[in-house]
């Protein structure tokens, strides 16, 4: 999928407007899903669209698909935080998640995710559920690689503890 992502972007840049729909199809769900962890669904959709607008309004160069994805997630996250800054409050994670994707097979895991600290949650989500590397995650979260590793370790420990308690 990721190879197609960069190929679609290059096609769009070379003038193929139809490549935009393919690009949106490839990435928009993941972006909306991620944004929903932070803001309400309508704002999440807007944030995801804004990420595409930021991507397409200028011709940018990406070394590989990972960088392109990281860029989209980073912009989405920034837009979400802009929304939050205006509203000055964070919505509960479970509430956000439940709305766009009600029938996810790993419901317990998501609920547990909603119960841990926000920074642990973001790191765990991006690395283990969206498949970013620690480097890319560090770019998106604007942290160092070492901090990302720490967040992941602590996030996993917190999740483990919660899930054990439930069992």
């Amino acid at each position, binding site marked *: 999928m990721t190879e197609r992502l960069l190929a679609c972007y290059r096609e769009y840049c070379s003038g193929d407007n139809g490549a*935009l*729909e393919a690009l*949106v*199809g490839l990435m*928009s769900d993941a972006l*909306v899903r991620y944004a929903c962890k932070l803001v309400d*669904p309508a704002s999440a*959709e807007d944030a*995801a*669209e*804004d990420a*595409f*607008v930021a991507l*397409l*309004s200028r011709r940018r160069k990406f070394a590989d698909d990972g960088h392109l994805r990281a860029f989209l997630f980073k912009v989405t996250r920034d837009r979400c935080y802009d929304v939050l800054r205006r509203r000055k409050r964070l919505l509960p994670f479970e509430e956000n998640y439940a709305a*766009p994707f009600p029938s996810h097979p790993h419901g317990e895991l998501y609920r547990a995710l909603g119960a841990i600290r926000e920074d642990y949650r973001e790191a765990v989500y991006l690395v283990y559920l969206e498949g970013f590397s620690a480097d890319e995650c560090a770019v998106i979260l604007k942290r160092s690689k070492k901090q990302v590793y720490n967040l992941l370790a602590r996030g996993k420990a917190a999740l483990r503890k919660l899930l054990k308690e439930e069992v």
Partner: protein
Amino acid sequence: MRSYRERTEDIRQKLKRKKRARRAAIGGCTGALGALSLFALILFVPYTTGGAPNLFQYRESEYYPVIERIAELSSDDVVYESNFDRWGIRDLFGAKGETVAVPDSPAVNETEGAGGYREVTDLQTEGVIEGDLFKRSEHYLFYLSCRMEQRSLDGQTFKSAYARDLVPRIGLSLGVYSVAQEESRLLSELALPAAEGFVFGSDSKEREMYLSEDCSAVTVIVPCYETATGLKYTAIYRVDVSDPYTMSADRPLFLSGDYVTSRMKDGRLLLVDNFAVYRPDFDEERSFLPAFGYAGEMEILPFGNIYLPEHSTRACYTVLACVGEDGLLSAEALFSFSQEVYVSQDSLFATNAYTGEEGVVCTEIARVLYGDGFVLGGKAVIEGTVHDRYSMDAYDGYLRVFADAPADFRKGLQENVSLFIFEEDTMELVSSVERFAPDGETVQSARFDKNYGYVCTALIVKFTDPVYYFDLSDPTHVSNKDTGTISGYSAFLTKFSRGTLLGIGYENDREFKLELYGETETAVESVAVFARDAYNVPSDYKAFFIDREHGLIGAAACFFDEEEQIFRNEYLLFLFDGYGIDVVCRLEMEGEPSDARAFYADGCFYMVSEKDFYAVPLGL
């Protein structure tokens, strides 16, 4: 949840909106920057207003040779101007002045004869009276003050103060003091208002005055500006002081240029101005030709009275005027001559320095005979420049000149000092002693006294000097002797009592120095010296009081009080008893040291400045 197609469409719309917004922002910024740049270009980019003007229209004018010369000299000085200045925006932050009349002081109802004239200024040439801040008769002392008028500016911004004519201006007043030992006091004061359309400038500190021989009139000379044109003039007031309690001033006579010097001889005032032509407007004759007369009635100097030398390096004139009781008697202008002017008993010598052939600096000395008008009496050219008027002297038919000889690196020559002797009538060189000082030294002070010439040469940064005595009794065989290298240097030299030579100068960069020199058969020796930390030492020789008869020297400066560890302005009176220099009187003063004047009469020492007046019995 929206479909991919809907999201894509949304993204396309947002992209379009963003592109439009960006285009609008770029267009707006470009427009604003363009407008700002255009405004800045219009406002600040300078344009030249100088350069060589078209003189075709003036070729029929009798002054065309002068116009041509001025255009040639002033065209190099390209003047840059911007609309910021032209539209008067800068004036919002500056000031312009107009005349403010100051009310006269009330008269005192006492009368007493003035008595005979008593000269108080140390003259360069005997019989040729020089102007000064003060003059005296037997019974009265006249002092010319120049001070900033005090006006209340409480609660005023500068702009509102200017609009209400409250900006402080420089005022001039003539004070009369009685000369009556300890009972001396200020009797009356007359404020001299600037004429309509004129204002006194900050250089009004260069004011001077004369007292007529019958002590009935005072002639006041003061620099001023014409407010409408900004041109500089020298105003000449004649004040009736026959009754010192009811003094009155006539309307002033004006002469173009900066005041340089003046002399009074046989009741006639000889005035020397330096008129620098700046940005001439050839349609306005007063901007480039010397003018004289009363305000609103000025006349231009006839072309026949303007001397155009062969070499001219500056667009300026030395303007000479002879003023009698009834106004201007005669006037002459020397084009391109500088400010160093020496006036002897019957002649005036003006200098014009220029770079001659092979890049050597030369000075042309023009002799002008004054008596019934001005007559050019020959000229001489020397290599180098003339330090000041005391470096020239005419005596017994000879003109003697100490000159700074220029450096000539092609010949391996450093700056030095030369003496030239000319036959006065023909201005032909009789003899010279060239480059007699240590290499690199220049004239710091010079003085002639009959058959002797004295000069102090120094390289100022080293604070060492020799003082030379020249025996000029035989102009064709001049001999000299000197002190050798001694510390400090003299800025003024003058013959003093007991056959000594007085040098007033600096011991080092902090210490003011008085040194007396005497001569032996083979050398010049220091007889006595006084040195002390001092600041703000006057640069005008007239500010020092010299009384050869009693061996007194007076000097005002900012001295360091070692007891209280503070600096304060003091007037010190020194006595030379033949062995050493001692302070015999110390007066604390509020006024400026350069404005202090003093004299000694009938056992009483008098000191006057703008803010002080002392009469101290000394009984020497």
